[in-house]
């Protein structure tokens, strides 16, 4: 696991994350964007397709300076935009740790519950049985 020394104080922490997180060159507020999924990833196993389109409501992204560092530290970069920006990250050494810049809840419906949310809830239900 990559260990970046995150400071304890609230203001120092904000400065720390301001370096990791950068404003998107093009804000994705209430827009859909295509995302390529990495083969063999948790994200790919959920969607079962190599490319997806999801609704964003976000203006920030992981700084490209840190993407490779995160990957070498054990964080899988499992979803990218067409221009190569990181959109989904996950941890392999964890029962279920999946984070994304888009909001799957925005496209969930009663008739079509979102597969990411269903997988998360299934994993939580399994966890409750342990």
């Amino acid at each position, binding site marked *: 696991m990559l260990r970046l020394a*995150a400071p304890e104080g*609230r203001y120092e*922490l*904000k400065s720390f*994350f301001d370096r990791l997180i950068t404003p998107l060159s093009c804000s994705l507020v209430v827009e859909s964007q295509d995302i390529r999924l990495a083969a063999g990833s948790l994200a790919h196993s959920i969607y079962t397709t190599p490319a997806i389109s999801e609704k964003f*409501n*976000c203006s920030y992204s992981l700084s490209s300076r840190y993407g490779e560092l995160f990957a070498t530290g054990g964080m899988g970069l499992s979803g990218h935009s067409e221009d190569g920006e990181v959109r989904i990250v996950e*941890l392999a050494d*964890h*029962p*279920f*740790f*999946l*984070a*994304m810049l*888009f*909001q*799957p*809840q*925005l496209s*969930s*419906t*009663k008739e079509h*519950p*979102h597969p*990411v*949310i*269903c997988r*998360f*809830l*299934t*994993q*939580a*239900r399994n*966890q*409750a049985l342990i």
Partner: protein
Amino acid sequence: MCASKVAIGVIGDFDETRPAHLATNRALDHGSAALFTEFEIVWLPTKELETEDGLESFQHFSGLWGAPGNHASSLGMIRAIQVARQRHIPYLGT
């Protein structure tokens, strides 16, 4: 069907004027119905997660969901995600 409710903690300061927060609750209902499972949904204000005492409640949760938006405490949000990672609690970040 589970005999008791499965507890999900939603890390974030719920704001009923934010469509994404309302969508989070609705999506949890959709998933609950699809899985034939009752989930207990508890929103967790981020300021309360800055301390060890605030994070103690996490033993109760079988899953943690990081809600979208700007929250009152980035520190609380980060600490909560750290606990999810270290204690191997299923985590979904949106």
